[in-house]
């Protein structure tokens, strides 16, 4: 283990703060999808850059954990690197880029393509925990709407999307209903990833630092993307293949080169590398 930053407690936060966060997390797990207010602390990383996820990770991480941090599906985006370095400095725990090896995964904007296993914990960074905020900005009001399970506003919004566009105008942060009760924001993951949340064997924890809310989905919980009987929720593949590993079913990044050509590669870099190791090839190698 590497040396821990001098003058700071393990994982930066003091033990009483961690306990406060864990208590809030226990409540969140007990009421799946319900937003639990918590005494969010000022962190040494900027609001909007993952302070909620970092606090959740700090509260649950132990010395034997193996941590993976991704942003946009990649371990090497600058924000992911920065957060991983932060935990290396403040905990000294082992880090990995391999989804299978990790016990704790902090993510922004993606769910790994590799199915998660029982015992793993997935921590989401959440900018806006309130799924109704575009329809009702006053939190004093949305709290009442959730309490009464009054989601008419949301249903009307989705209906109006269908009437205007023929599709629901939510390509990411697509709202879900958890355990048949609470409407919840899945954080800004693409709607493509929503089905991965349904009955996931891993524990899913969500942290919103600036908005001071936590929520959770316990393992094997029902998570339904909101839809209508005659317009069921569905995801469609991109219609392209990854140039590295040839995958047509994973979420792809679209990258233009200097000549104006468009290339497609897996957004989940670990998934892609794994497939290449197994001998899969895209046309770039052919």
């Amino acid at each position, binding site marked *: 283990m590497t040396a821990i930053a001098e003058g700071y407690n393990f994982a930066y936060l003091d033990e009483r703060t961690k306990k406060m966060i864990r208590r809030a997390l226990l409540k969140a797990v007990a009421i799946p999808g319900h937003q639990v207010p918590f005494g969010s602390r000022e962190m040494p990383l900027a609001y909007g850059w993952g302070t909620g996820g970092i606090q959740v990770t700090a509260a649950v991480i132990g010395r034997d954990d193996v941590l993976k941090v991704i942003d946009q599906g990649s371990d*090497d985006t600058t924000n992911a690197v920065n957060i991983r370095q932060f935990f290396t400095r403040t905990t000294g725990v082992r880090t990995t880029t391999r989804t299978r090896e990790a016990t704790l995964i902090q993510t922004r904007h993606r769910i790994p393509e590799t199915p998660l296993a029982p015992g793993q914990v997935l921590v989401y960074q959440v900018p806006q925990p309130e799924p109704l905020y575009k329809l009702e900005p006053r939190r004093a009001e949305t709290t009442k709407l959730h309490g009464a399970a009054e989601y008419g506003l949301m249903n009307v919004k989705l209906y109006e999307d269908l009437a205007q566009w023929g599709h629901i105008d939510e390509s990411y942060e697509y709202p879900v209903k958890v355990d048949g009760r609470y409407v919840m924001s899945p954080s800004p993951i693409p709607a493509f990833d929503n089905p991965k949340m349904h009955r996931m064997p891993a524990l899913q924890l969500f942290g919103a630092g600036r908005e001071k809310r936590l929520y959770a989905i316990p393992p094997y919980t029902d998570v339904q993307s909101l839809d209508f009987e005659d317009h069921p929720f569905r995801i469609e593949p991109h219609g392209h293949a990854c140039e590295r590993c040839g995958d047509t079913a994973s979420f792809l990044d679209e990258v233009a080169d200097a000549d104006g050509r468009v290339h497609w590669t897996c957004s989940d870099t670990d998934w892609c590398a794994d497939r290449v190791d197994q001998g899969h090839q895209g046309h770039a190698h052919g």
Partner: protein
Amino acid sequence: MYIAVKGGERAIEASRQLLAAARRGDTNVPALEAAQIEQQLGLLVSRAMAEASLYDPSLAALALRQACGDAIEAAFLLRAYRTTLPRFGYSEPIDTDRMRVVRRVSAIFKHLPGGQLLGPTFDYTQRLLEFGALAAATPGPAPHAAAAPEDVPNALTQLAREGLVEPCLRSVGDPQPPDITRDPPAYPLPRTGWLQMLARADEGWVLGLGYSTQRGYAHTHPFAADLRTGKVTVELVPDELDFPIEIGEIELTECQMINQFVGSADVAPVFTRGQGLVFGRGERKAIAMSLVDRALRGAEFGEGSASPAQQQEFALPQGDSVEASGFVQHLKLPHYVTFESELQLIRKLRKDVHARAVEAAREGESE
């Protein structure tokens, strides 16, 4: 074809080094000492302390230097440090009537007990750039500082005694104030909560909101009754003792605004108050804060809540400079996954529209 998937780590390290160089600037110019900032850029130090809600002038000066002079970044650095400090107690309420004032003005009386004391202010400087000071900074003679008067009573004391102004009373039930740095806000907040939020809110935000009340959005008919800056003693009752002991002093600026009276045919009218209180010398912020405080009391006086300054959930959370700065600037983080999702959707929608247009044209032809 090459698509970069590595390099984040090296890029971050290079960026940190570039920042250090940019902060230092031309090495032929002497480096700025934190003590110089503390002594000579006092208003900036005050602002950083106020928005950080941490009273420590030397740390604020250090943070300002590290932040290349960016007040919000400095407040962020101080807050990230503040959050690691243990909390060993709460002070006794400070008494601003016992402030050792360096400045105290009242706009509602020509003369009043304690007097009008201009003190150091930009108000009558005529704002002419001192070009001569560019060449050589010649220290002028130190001005003769009059001894700070003790115990200057608040300008509203006499009016309150006559019953013309609402008295300063504890709220019903005297609830323990929430601690906004520990408890998540549950709206509507009590006044003790919103005053805390305003005290460390972004100065520009509070200024704009306060100004809005003067331009027809929740007018409050304000008069600056008592505006003062100076040092006050901080006292604490330790667990081991049953009496307060002095632990130090802090510099504060307070504005007591007096506003339109409330009452009815049956209830004798009284003037109402708004309060602004900030760390250090922060007169602009204190005045603006007292306007917003009074506007936020609109519900209490049945004045409605149609204007932004009267709406807690608009006026308060958006004013936190560190929260707002972080979230506005997080837009520069990569969002290419969510953007790709939007691209997929807009292409699909455009294809649908196009297909319908082709279909309509075909039908038109066949008729």
